[in-house]
């Protein structure tokens, strides 16, 4: 079975339409969405409508949660004072723009989805806000996958797609307890994978193209897809709808709008 996994659409309806067309052309059997349907981009309601109308299983992203719960970011959400200022502007704009039924839908989204040996989350199994960066410590990365009881963990949030294999992991655990021997217990973990789907609507790889992944459940083959789309339409809509013009400039260059995690050792406290 061929799965398409998309993430981080961020109100970029043009990018979503292009990706859905590409998924159709690739003949995927099922689409999963890892959240962040809204935020920064000019069409949050339209994106949510599209996802709902296609009944795409979706988990909640950090931006979706913020629109439901209000801003309560850990320091990892923003790399700078400037980014924080811009993130808040985008949040306030989205908060005003979003329809009540869309907000209600975002509130119903689960934090994770499971399918056989696959697990789907936005950031990490711990939180929608935690970044699983490709350079994250191997033990911590493995712990995140093991906590889901899955073999393959799909995530987004970093906006840069990657595949990370955690092979031949040997774990040694010592439990200190008066009732038990404190001899270390050895575990051997089977091959685990983290697959990051990148971003449909806010790519961060130096080009404006949208990214997503295809996953074949029979062969475990992963294909990272990069899809060109008419980003100038989104840029014009950003300007027309009164969002900061710098968002359009950055989108056209494949630069993040504001958020970006740099520290792979940071544990999100959200």
């Amino acid at each position, binding site marked *: 079975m061929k799965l398409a996994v998309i993430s981080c659409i961020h109100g970029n309806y043009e990018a979503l339409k292009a990706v859905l067309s590409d998924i159709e052309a690739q003949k995927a059997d099922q689409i999963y969405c890892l959240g962040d349907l809204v935020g920064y981009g000019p069409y949050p309601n339209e994106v949510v409508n599209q996802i709902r109308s296609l009944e795409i299983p979706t988990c909640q992203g950090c931006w979706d949660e913020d629109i439901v719960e209000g801003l309560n970011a850990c320091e990892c959400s923003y790399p*700078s*004072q*400037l*980014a924080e200022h811009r993130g808040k502007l985008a949040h306030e704009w989205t908060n005003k723009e979003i329809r009540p039924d869309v907000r209600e839908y975002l509130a119903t989204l689960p934090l994770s989805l499971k399918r056989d040996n696959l697990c789907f989350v936005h950031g990490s199994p711990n939180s929608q806000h935690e970044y699983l960066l490709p350079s994250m410590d191997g033990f911590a990365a493995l712990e995140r996958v093991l906590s889901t009881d899955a073999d393959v963990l799909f995530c987004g949030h970093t906006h840069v797609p990657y595949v990370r294999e955690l092979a031949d992991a040997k774990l040694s655990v010592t439990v200190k307890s008066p009732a038990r021997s404190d001899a270390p217990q050895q575990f051997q973990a089977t091959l685990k994978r983290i697959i990051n789907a990148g971003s449909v609507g806010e790519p961060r790889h130096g080009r404006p193209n949208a990214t997503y992944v295809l996953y074949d459940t029979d062969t475990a083959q992963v294909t990272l897809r990069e899809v060109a789309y008419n980003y100038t339409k989104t840029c014009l809509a950003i300007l027309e709808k009164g969002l900061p013009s710098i968002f359009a*400039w*950055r989108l056209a*260059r494949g630069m993040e709008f504001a958020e970006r995690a740099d520290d792979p050792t940071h544990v999100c406290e959200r």
Partner: protein
Amino acid sequence: MQSFDLTLVAGPPGVGKTTWISQFLANPSRPLFYLCPCAQDAVDFARIGYCFPWVSIISDDQAADVLADLPDQAQVFIELGFHMDLGSPLLVALPGRRIAIVPPSLDSSEWHNWADEVIPSPNQQVSGELASASGKLPTIWRSPLTGQVFDPPSLDEVLIELTGGAYGQVTRLKGIFELPDGQAFYVDFVEGLPGIEYTELKLPRWLEGRPDRFSGLEIVGHNLEQKTIAQALLTCCLADDVLLQYQRQYQQLQLEDETVAAETEPGVVA
């Protein structure tokens, strides 16, 4: 009879006029004077003062008096920005050596006609073209920033945007910025040359309140969105309470460093 050397240096933005002059200012064996007409709040003024404290910086209103009463063996350097009219009677009347620094690709120009000596710029990528495609001359935008302290990652980001053309076409950017660890940096960008150059200025660390020494930004370019640039810069500046918090941390670190240094210093044996 008293004697002095006067050198006038002209050329398009980014060719290295100040750098060329600096090689002579580094040697304090003779009384040195520097003048950059119509640029009293220019970054070069402050940088020359910070890097070569033995050089007398002449302001426009002092120029006539100082030039009329120069000490014996004085060396005077007058830097002429691209906006200066080289044919003005005041400049024509000045008795001195005329140096033009021009891009190697430029065969003839008003600088060639004016100069006694033409020096090819080491910055080979600089075009020397002043006018934009529409024939407009570039604008110089200066913003004094004295007292402002920048959030370092925000400053990085805004400089990337500025030099990347997010707020108009920037052909030249020079700035002196204060950072929360008390250091001041000189920042230099020339369109056509790779990257943005950061140079730490060898100044005492300012860790008590807002720095009371010059910092500022100077941009040369076309279609500059001055209001938006000013807003973006302001967003990168630290508020009083945040600055205080940073300075307390750096003061503590400085104290610890001094304590370690004192403990490891060899004792004096009586």
